[in-house]
């Protein structure tokens, strides 16, 4: 059962959209036995076991909780495939800052995935902050996600995406 939505195309381009994606990663709890294949771990487990894991030929992702700082990953980012940012409640907006910092300050180009209380009403904000993969919590389909993400024809401020801002549209 695929439940991962991924963006396709450029956020400001005509072929922007979203589709179901095969999720090759397994979320691994701190006390779970380590499975074969690609894994997403907590920050603590990654800090304890990451070095060995990264030397295996598997892909590794780290899950960051809102009270953890993404800067902790700064040196490991080139080796990470996924950073999963957690929304314990949709109201907890810290992951938006984490996503922007990953993209704009730390230069992370891998997958930034929204996990937890992930709702289509927030799709627009998430996409603008640099999320490109989503585990929706509300049964949203890629079609609904695409629509929600692009409900507004204009945006007023720069963020982590490449959309043209109102003042750039005005300047032409």
């Amino acid at each position, binding site marked *: 059962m695929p439940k991962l939505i991924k963006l396709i195309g450029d956020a400001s381009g005509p072929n922007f959209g979203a589709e179901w994606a095969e999720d090759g990663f397994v979320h691994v709890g701190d006390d779970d036995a380590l499975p074969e294949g690609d894994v997403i771990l907590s920050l603590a487990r990654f800090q304890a076991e990451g070095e060995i894991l990264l030397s295996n030929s598997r892909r590794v992702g780290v899950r960051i909780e809102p009270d953890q*700082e993404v800067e902790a990953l700064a040196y490991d980012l080139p080796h990470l495939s996924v950073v999963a940012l957690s929304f314990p409640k949709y109201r*907890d*907006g810290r992951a938006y*800052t984490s996503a922007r910092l990953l993209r704009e300050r730390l230069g992370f180009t891998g997958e930034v995935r929204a996990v937890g209380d992930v709702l289509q009403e927030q799709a627009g*904000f998430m996409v*603008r*902050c640099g999320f490109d993969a989503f585990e929706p919590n509300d049964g949203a389909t890629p079609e609904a996600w695409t629509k929600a993400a692009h409900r507004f024809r204009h945006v007023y*401020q720069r963020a982590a995406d490449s959309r043209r801002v*109102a003042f750039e549209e*005005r300047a032409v």
Partner: protein
Amino acid sequence: MYRYDAIDREFLTDRSNEFRHQVARRLAGELTEDQFKPLRLMNGLYLQLHAYMLRVAIPYGSLNSRQVRRLAWIGRTYDKGYGHFTTRQNLQFHWIKLKDVPDILDAMAEVDLHAIQTSGNCIRNVTADPYAGATAEEIDDPRVWSEILRQWSTLHPEFSFLPRKFKIAVTGALTDRAAVKTHDIGLFLRKGREGEIGFEVVVGGGQGRTPYIAQTIRSYLPSEHLLSYVEAILRVYNRHGRRDNIYKARIKILVAALGIEEFTRQVEEEWGKINAERADLPAAEQARIRAAFAQPNFETLPAVSEAFEAARAASPALQRFVRNNVKPHKVPGYTIVEVSLKAIGQTPGDATADQLDVVADLGERYSLDDIRVTHAQNLVLPHVKLDDLPAVHAALEAAGLATANIDLASDIIACPGLDYCALANARAIPIAQDIAKTFADPDRAEKIGELKIKISGCINACGHHHVAHIGILGVDKKGEEFYQLSLGGSGAEDASIGKILGPGLSAEKVAPAIDALVETYLHIRTGGERFLDTYRRVGLEPFKEAVYAQAD
């Protein structure tokens, strides 16, 4: 005034289509009230004691006549014929039906009005000095910066789910008419050494159950870095503000917990990491927005108007109005006119649809189509010619809008309280009405002078009671409404938090207690002292004695 362009308009259309869709899903039962609540709140729609309440954003309290007429029409068509102006320069309709809301939002969008970010844990409607562009005191026009902040904060992708709501106020004058120091971020325009423009930035002000006066985080910020600096403050707050307890979630609590030095250090460090070139507004856009607020074509007029002088000599009512409601304008021959929404016995801040139409007509005809809302819940016609003042006064008088009481005892700020608000402990409106009646004699009110009385129906402090010369807070004592008085607060440039006078009073004792406070002041004041000055000189004791000796 800023005029929406095609981009701003399409944005509002998209917003209102989105909400129409959400309301349809709610009415069809596809969304539960729980699921719908965050969606409606994002559009300023609250569920109150009796009905839905719609809060309309009035960016920096500035309206044109078309917008005011449209608000009047909405009040008439969808509410009970009136609207309520709030201390955040917004307007609330208290009797709204859910099914009508999409149509109301469309009707508002047609005149560039909306309800975006009037609730929720986001950056709320930015407020500013209601005399902007009209007062000679001004270093720069705060509307320019408020509009820049309005656009930047609109559906901000990073800062729409903050720990708690976030309020910003801007003033360009030394006299603070926007309660700037009670805001999460306050911006005072300042001149730099070479005459360039910047801001003194203050943070961590707030009211509610733990009131704080904002503290200076930067005494001078070059104006072109406004957005990057505000972004730095908001990012530190978004990351580190408390989310475990809504009563401790405002930025004021973070600032107090860290101390202003440490908070400043964190913000400056974050600011140093921001790519200012991307974060700050390009100069061309700043110039475009500034041009929208270019000084209108004022006529060259003599500083003295004969027509006005003649009318004034003949009318004691006009004299009184001029003494209290008319303020100096920066251009000779013009004045700023305050329209009081505090007629004795009325609900503070309420305006009927007919009154709104009158104000719209006067604004269009006599005030360069410019109308303002003040945080004290009054309206302003900012550009009235002295020559026209008699006509404006007469028209206001005919509409019941010429009460000459600005900043006097009956110019009371009051929240909706238990008459409308689901969170209230006690009624606020009837208390305000009682007090206003006590000071209805205009000669006595003028003799008392500036006196800011403010009432909140609960500790959330929507009525600004903490920063009142005399504050009144409704509390619930075993199911009975009681009122706690406090003295010595101010929301102006000399901002301070009031001190509690003593045990709470029952409703019928409040107005007599205020009367006793005022009589005490009249006896002991010296020179030109305002009530606040006297209190600051002598302290609580004489006032305490007056109230509690009199109470029983």
